[in-house]
């Protein structure tokens, strides 16, 4: 008797269940995950750029005679950070050049 009652309760509860496979739900979770990733990456980039700008500013203040060297170092650091942040895109861009590896 108890099993029959439990089955009926389970059936009633399951009538509110979503579909067993729901691609839309999964895509929504993935979309939220990508937004979260983007926010994190953007936060790290802004923080890094701010620190770099502060360091460069301090360097120029302390040693104005080395402005060129400090600016070059700042540009190199910015390019390195950019390359690290966008490395998947750079790898994709470099793929057509792979056949040239045999010449090196």
């Amino acid at each position, binding site marked *: 008797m108890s099993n029959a009652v439990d089955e009926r309760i389970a059936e009633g509860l399951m009538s*509110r269940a979503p579909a*067993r496979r729901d691609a839309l739900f999964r895509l929504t*979770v993935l979309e939220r995950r990508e937004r*979260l990733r983007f926010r994190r990456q953007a936060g790290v980039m802004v923080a890094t750029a701010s620190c770099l700008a502060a360091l460069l500013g301090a360097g120029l203040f302390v040693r104005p005679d080395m402005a060129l060297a400090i600016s070059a170092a700042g540009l190199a650091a910015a390019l390195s950070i950019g390359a690290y942040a966008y490395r998947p895109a750079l790898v994709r861009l470099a793929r057509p050049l792979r056949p040239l590896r045999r010449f090196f």
Partner: protein
Amino acid sequence: MDEDDAALLAAVCEGSDRAFNALIDRHQQAVRLFLRGLVSGLEDADDIAQETFLAVWRHGRAYKGRGSVRAWMFSIAWRKAKDAQRLGFRRRRREAAYRELASGGSPATDDAIALEQAMATLSLDQRAAVVLCLGCGFTAAEAAEALGQPVGTVKSHVSRGRARLAEALGVQS
């Protein structure tokens, strides 16, 4: 299945998108059913379910191997549902949820309406235990692990919940 879940979770922690997709596909129905039993409003429940899977992705390494992955996942969902209730996260009142169900009319829907009304009279803990054990097929031990409660408490909640729901269905439990 739990060994598969542990392997999937380990792969998710390594950054596998395929594993994360598989984990969602495997558990989304049960997690969403559980949350729909706790929170009034299908969108609110699904929103919390999405947050749950995001938390699994972010904090997968927090699973230390004690108990099943499924119970750990549901414990996250349970905590988020309680937080949502505390914040007054009710966009629909129970009567609106009842109207939503009442738009059907088949015998199964009549049972669902009666169950929904009876569920609304249970406490949050009782609803959680009932949905896990009678709806999602959890054992009392696994439900206790997910809810962070003693097994005896869970069994008591299920027993009282079953009696109330059986009364709503017009049968003796």
